[in-house]
């Protein structure tokens, strides 16, 4: 079971989390708990790591004092037993002391490296985990806490975005956690953090604590992974756009990964990778509404329902670039040049479309990168005969309709586009991968929400 930042944001929440774990434990389940940092703490640490290099010692101390206060207050509310509370508070103070030394080090040296940044970032989880550990002991659950490193997660040395050495990790995790599970002890493990083969702290990047949970579950051959969060599960669309949006009861791994990529509030695709391969089902559940069964992500779920379109996502803050040039037609390598220029400028292409006949290729990138992209493309490609014109639109958005059953079902695109046409919405660009998991298209930003509503309605997602 993994608990996200909001689930452990305050002492009351931590107490709730502990009760959920205790209930499962008392029902006889073998549980491993993975804990995120208190909501907001990782971002604070990220900022502080950057700030520390040009800050005074006093500023660093102000930050650490504030951090101590927040965690001590949480301990106060989460743990009733005086003795346990005292022990947890001591651990928190000691851990913050260590953090302070690291930050002061950065402050003196005036430099933060990827290695030291990961070290600083690891403190969020190192502070939250003892709180959950204490709250569990408070409820008479036998438990022991570990950092991801102590639990045996070994990664490469790609600091900030480390990937696990899965076989090495499996070996260590089984060696360390299985004996505890046999003795009916609940291991509580810090999410997000691991270590290299030499024991240097790394972080798992965007996969985060979910990744820790899925790595551990594969290593221990768990029956299920439960991701506890603050929503009921993965929804058909953003309820702010369509108030009648529903929680999706079941999804396949492929669908879930699609939705994660398109920004649905779900798991990062890299976190899903290990469990998808090992076919371990994942449940997304709501800490604040544990009665709700949430969303089940598992193999073979695509055929469980007949719905072709299961969800619609709206991706804002994107921009479209159009590259024109008659000389691009039939010229091998011409698209490669375009992609290469953007790749070298470290710009990720989210969507691409080029017609057979047209001397034109359209790309979608993050809007914040538009300036950089345009200048790179202009410098590298214009005036060399191949590309004659580069234009951009920054008032667009992407809409993605997803569902595994689209595959081989004729007429899905026609239904989508007819629905949009009825609302008078013009489509600027279209892309569909041959896996047929989604159809993505671009409309003007002002039409975005209306387009989502139109598709939601057309496929009757509100009554799923």
């Amino acid at each position, binding site marked *: 079971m993994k608990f996200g930042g909001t689930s452990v944001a305050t002492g009351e929440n931590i107490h709730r989390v502990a009760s959920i774990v205790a209930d499962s434990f008392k029902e006889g389940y073998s549980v491993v708990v993975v804990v995120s940092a208190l909501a907001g703490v990782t971002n604070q640490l990220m900022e502080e790591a950057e700030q520390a290099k040009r800050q005074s010692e006093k500023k660093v101390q102000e930050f650490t004092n504030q951090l101590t206060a927040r965690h001590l207050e949480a301990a106060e509310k989460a743990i009733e037993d005086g003795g346990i509370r005292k022990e947890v508070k001591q651990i928190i103070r000691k851990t913050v002391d260590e953090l302070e030394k690291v930050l002061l080090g950065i402050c003196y040296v005036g430099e933060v490296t990827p290695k030291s940044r990961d070290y600083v970032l690891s403190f969020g989880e190192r502070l939250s985990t003892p709180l959950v550990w204490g709250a569990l002991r408070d409820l008479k659950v036998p438990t022991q806490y570990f950092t991801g490193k102590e639990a045996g997660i070994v990664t*490469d040395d790609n600091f900030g975005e480390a990937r696990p*050495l*899965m*076989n*090495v990790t*499996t*070996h*260590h995790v089984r060696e360390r956690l299985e004996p505890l599970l046999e003795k009916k002890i609940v291991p509580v493990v810090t999410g997000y953090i691991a270590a290299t*083969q*030499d024991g240097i702290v790394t972080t798992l990047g965007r996969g985060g604590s979910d990744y820790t949970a899925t790595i551990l579950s594969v290593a221990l051959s768990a029956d299920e992974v439960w991701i506890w969060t603050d929503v009921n599960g993965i929804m058909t669309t953003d309820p702010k756009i369509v108030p009648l949006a529903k929680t999706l009861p079941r999804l396949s791994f492929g669908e879930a990964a699609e939705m994660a990529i398109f920004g649905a509030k779900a798991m990062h695709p890299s976190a899903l990778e290990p469990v998808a391969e090992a076919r371990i089902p994942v449940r997304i559940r709501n800490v604040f509404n544990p009665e709700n069964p949430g969303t089940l992500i598992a193999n073979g779920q695509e055929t469980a329902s007949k719905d072709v379109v299961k969800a619609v996502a709206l991706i804002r803050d994107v921009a479209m670039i159009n590259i024109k040039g008659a000389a691009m037609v039939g010229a091998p390598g011409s698209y490669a040049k375009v992609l290469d220029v953007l790749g070298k400028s470290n710009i990720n292409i989210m969507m691409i479309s080029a017609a057979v006949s047209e001397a034109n290729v359209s790309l979608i990138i993050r809007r914040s990168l538009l300036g950089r992209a345009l200048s790179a493309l202009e410098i590298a490609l214009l005036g060399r005969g191949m590309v004659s014109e580069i234009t951009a639109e920054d008032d667009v958005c992407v809409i993605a309709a997803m569902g595994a059953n689209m595959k081989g079902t004729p007429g899905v695109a026609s239904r989508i586009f007819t629905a949009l046409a009825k609302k008078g919405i013009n489509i600027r660009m279209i892309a569909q991968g041959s896996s047929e998991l989604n159809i993505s298209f671009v409309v003007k930003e002002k039409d975005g929400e209306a387009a989502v509503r139109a598709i939601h309605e057309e496929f009757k997602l509100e009554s799923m």
Partner: protein
Amino acid sequence: MWQGEVGMRIILIGFGVVGKSVTAIIARRYSERVKDYGFNPKIVAIVDVDGAVINPRGLSAEKLETLRQKGFPISKDPEFGHPGMSALDVIESVEAEVVVEVTPVNIKNGEPAMSHITKAFKTGKHVVTTNKGPLALALPALMELAEYNNVYFRFSGTVGGGTPMLEFAKRCLAGDKILAIKGILNGTTNYILTEMAQKRVTFQEALSNAQKLGYAETDPTMDVEGFDTACKIVILANWVMNRKVTLRDVDRTGIRGVTLQELDEAAKRGNTIKLIGAIDGEGKPTVKPMEIPKTSPLCVSGVLNAVTFHTEFAGEQTLVGKGAGGVETASAVLRDLLEIRRRLASKMLS
């Protein structure tokens, strides 16, 4: 002027029967090696429990001979001895291309070999081992760690002794699909079962004979309970069939329960009972006494080992040979060293 030998540098960890044989083979085959393969490995360090002998330019053949004859403790050597220096220190501080790990087997936690091997990987050294312990417990992890650190990891002496069972399956049967493996992989138990069947003696008598002849250890658990065979099956499953299994996944039964009556009954059917290690079509590893026809090519007697690979196209292939012995196992180490050298050369020249 350079006063030492030219060649691949080796750290030898463990100076028991196999370790001594490795130095002997390297010293003895000098002229052939250089002439035929252009291969001239030199041992720059030997580590035993008491400490180390280190010469960064390579220990001479005479020095190796002296060390072999004097034996324990080696670190008293007046020229190159370092009493108390640990294997981990040597791996960390002595420059070398390859670590040869031949310490005694431990199937509880694989130590100390496990630490030696991982330390070698982390310091960028290739590893040749004959030690089944760490492999049986963590072969998938060790293979991944070697790959991550960009070093080679070879262990052909762990299965079949000098008989190239692993290479045969991996290289000679390349392109074919190995569907199942079945083998007699432990000489001690095969000797005991052969004695029982042929001389009609009880398990206990056969075991004490084997112990007298030095075929069985004072504590015969590793062999008669099937642990040794299980270790080898794990290695075969991982290396040949790409199955990520470890010792605990093996369904294992030893030979203590085999009775003369059972052997007699099997004989009436033209069969006999052997301790068979197997990986079936589903990749399930098992070790248990099984009845096999006396006419089967697998049915070898005495301390011999045999393994049959069931392949999709080439049918059944059986390999027979001595499964243990110092020199035999050391020959496997030499093979592994040559293989690493060949791979390194093609990497450097490509």
